[in-house]
């Protein structure tokens, strides 16, 4: 029998459990513990002691290349405000009501576009005078919550950040080592994730951190992967050689095996035992087969993946169950005072900001639900057992070559709502969960690239902007507030000169594509260090960011990147 199934006896069980989260496998019949998710969650939830050392990084990716020239906008006394009005043309956001009316007339619009400043009844998104430039800026009218958060000091911007292999300027552009395939979607996304833009993709920087933490045993009680994506597989979470596999969840939690009914109701009875029907026998046989060990690497790999998925299913289900259950419940009590607290928070907040009338979480846009499941997994973090956790979510639709005026306000409105929902969830969790602090979770934004400074047409309804380079990215959370709050809001990095042919423009073409003044390495290095990566592990050929030494030390004041504390 052993020969027939090519069974081998050695199993690296410790590593398997840590990476795969299969807590009950060693006892033989896995299925006996799988029938009732709530029952499982009780057992699982009590097994880890993740506490005051917990930290999570959440990547909020804007797919398609968000036009952040319309996110952080020079206004008022800012000397670049005139450039904005002149160059952005039909893609520009009016600063005042007068500007909005002028735009309405100029382009023959049947409506008055929203404008930025609040003094004359606009959307009120002026942000505090930031240092070091001490010039006025506004945010896009759709970003009301983010403007408020910036002004309160728990959201910061790193301006003109992008993929760089070495420090590049308009002067050395033609001789510098440039990122492969600048301005190309897939390549630039890969490079935002790898942060090694001069080489073909090998691994993501978060994946490399997971690999380092695996070696350092940073997550000794891990029951599932440190790398969780709510938006399908992502290169950000690819670890070198696949040492730490990423785990993909749906907006409702784990992905179950299909064909056995909801929560395996068609195959298991209420006590978690196999039903005697054909479905139950099929599941029993399947799981027995999956428990074989094989010398053939592909056969063994298949079994490992399936078993890992079942183990993660158990763990994720337990975490979600805790997030959804009120604190007074006799079974699986969570931190919140009511059942489905986070569902209701997200629905209410989204409805308020977006003017919708949703009544349940399943009606929310998919990307909002992605952030919701991340909030739930953070709430149930003790079930996952990781001291360090990276999450990924994605919002698409930002490739606005055409119709930018129709599309971008709605897209940014959703971004603002997602930020509002998640930030409130973390603040509420800190209120109700004594083991959680608001500064344990930092969310950072990334996107393919910024878009061209000048629009590609002069028709309000069909024009847009095209692929460019350096972009403005934002970060929020309690750890940002800890640093930024004293000065209440600051633009980090170096804001570009907004001029075609200017100091920061690519010296090719005539559309305004900013050469990044802050490398992704510098930006990420600050996040990674806050997350627990030592400065010694950040740079150098074997470091998380091999190119980091090419740039100004991100911990030096000259880099202007103190948007978050050090580890």
């Amino acid at each position: 029998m052993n020969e027939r199934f090519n069974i081998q006896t050695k199993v690296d069980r410790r590593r398997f459990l840590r990476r795969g989260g299969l807590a009950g496998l060693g006892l033989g019949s896995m299925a006996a513990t799988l029938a009732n998710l709530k029952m499982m969650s009780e057992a699982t939830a009590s097994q880890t002691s993740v506490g005051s050392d917990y930290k999570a990084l959440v990547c909020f990716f804007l797919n398609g290349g968000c036009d952040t020239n319309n996110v952080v906008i020079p206004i008022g006394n800012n000397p670049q405000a005139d450039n904005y009005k002149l160059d952005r043309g039909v893609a520009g956001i009016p600063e005042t009501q007068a500007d909005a009316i002028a735009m309405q007339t100029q382009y023959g619009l049947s409506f008055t576009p929203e404008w930025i400043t609040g003094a004359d009844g606009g959307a009120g998104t002026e942000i505090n005078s930031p240092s070091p430039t001490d010039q006025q800026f506004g945010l896009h009218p759709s970003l009301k919550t983010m403007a408020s958060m910036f002004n309160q000091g728990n959201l910061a911007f790193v301006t003109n950040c992008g993929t760089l292999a070495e420090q590049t300027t308009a002067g050395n552009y033609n001789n510098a080592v440039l990122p492969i395939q600048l301005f190309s979607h897939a390549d630039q996304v890969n490079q935002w994730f790898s942060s090694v833009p001069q080489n073909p993709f090998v691994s993501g920087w978060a994946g490399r951190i997971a690999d380092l933490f695996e070696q350092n045993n940073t997550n000794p009680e891990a029951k599932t992967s440190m790398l969780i994506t709510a938006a399908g597989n992502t290169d950000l979470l690819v670890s070198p050689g696949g040492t730490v596999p990423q785990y993909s969840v749906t907006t409702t939690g784990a992905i179950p095996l299909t064909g056995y009914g909801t929560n395996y109701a068609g195959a298991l009875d209420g006590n978690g035992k196999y039903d005697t029907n054909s479905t139950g026998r099929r599941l029993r046989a399947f799981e027995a087969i999956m428990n074989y060990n094989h010398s053939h690497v592909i056969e063994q790999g298949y079994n490992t993946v399936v078993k890992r998925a079942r183990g993660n299913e158990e763990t994720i289900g337990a975490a979600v169950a805790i997030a959804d259950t009120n604190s007074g419940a006799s079974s699986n009590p969570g931190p919140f005072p009511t059942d489905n607290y986070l569902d209701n928070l997200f629905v209410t907040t989204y409805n308020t900001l977006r003017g919708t009338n949703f009544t349940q979480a399943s009606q929310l846009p998919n990307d909002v639900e992605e952030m919701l499941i991340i909030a739930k997994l953070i709430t149930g973090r003790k079930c996952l057992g990781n001291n360090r956790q990276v999450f990924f979510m994605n919002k698409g639709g930002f490739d606005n070559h055409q119709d930018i005026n129709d599309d971008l306000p709605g897209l940014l409105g959703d971004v603002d709502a997602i930020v509002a929902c998640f930030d409130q969830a973390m603040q509420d969790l800190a209120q109700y969960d004594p083991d959680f602090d608001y500064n344990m979770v930092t969310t950072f934004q990334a996107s393919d690239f910024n878009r061209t400074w000048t629009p590609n047409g002069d028709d309000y309804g069909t024009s847009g902007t095209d692929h460019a380079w350096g972009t403005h990215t934002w970060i929020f959370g309690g750890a940002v507030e800890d640093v930024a709050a004293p000065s209440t809001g600051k633009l980090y990095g170096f804001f570009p000169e907004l001029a075609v042919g200017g100091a920061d423009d690519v010296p090719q073409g005539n559309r305004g594509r900013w050469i990044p003044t802050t490398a992704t390495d510098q930006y990420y290095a600050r996040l990674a260090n806050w997350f627990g990566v030592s400065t010694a592990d950040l740079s150098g050929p074997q470091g998380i960011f091999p190119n980091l030494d090419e740039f100004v030390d991100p911990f030096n004041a000259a880099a202007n990147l103190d948007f978050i504390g050090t580890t």
Partner: protein
Amino acid sequence: MRQRAFTFFALFAAIIGGAYLLSLSNSENKNQSVTSGIIESEVAPRPAHLEKQTVTAPNVERSPKYPAKKDDPRLERHTNGKVSFKHAIEIARQMHDPESDTYTDLERLNEAIGFYRMVFKQNPVAGDNQMVISALTGNNPENIIVFPPDHPSINANGELLDRWETPYFFHALSSQTDLEIFSAGPDKKFGTHDDISFTDRGSRPLRGGDTTKS
């Protein structure tokens, strides 16, 4: 004896017959495969009044291997150090042939870019039309020319214009796939229904849009 001879003959006839039927079957399969390919390409959303014209697909075998031999007849070496791919130039010069149409123009342009890809293993960096045409006309690390710098449809800004004198739009998706190339069509505006595109993924609207649930 006669029975053995009959058996031998029957077996021989069966083998010959089987082989013939098999060859017919293969032939049918091949025809189906070819037909299927043509049908797939015809499914592309082109207006009915425009008849698609066949152009040869990029063919690496007939292209010089690069770096090429000095006397390779498929190359033309210029005094300024540039090297033209004759076949690519020939194809590019057929663009905007009055007997042809924009779809064919786009296919020819894509084929010229295919020669570039053959050498560099990636597309030209496509910040905008000007950058792409600059690279195709010889401003690249190998000094190769796959598109004639004096093509009548290149304007003073170095942009390649379509039949309606609007610059083509190059959409860089990935170095691993063809560039998406768009003509704004007769109305000279992108994002409208008369846009014409070439992409190996089939046509799609040139816009982003809200991906949220409606």
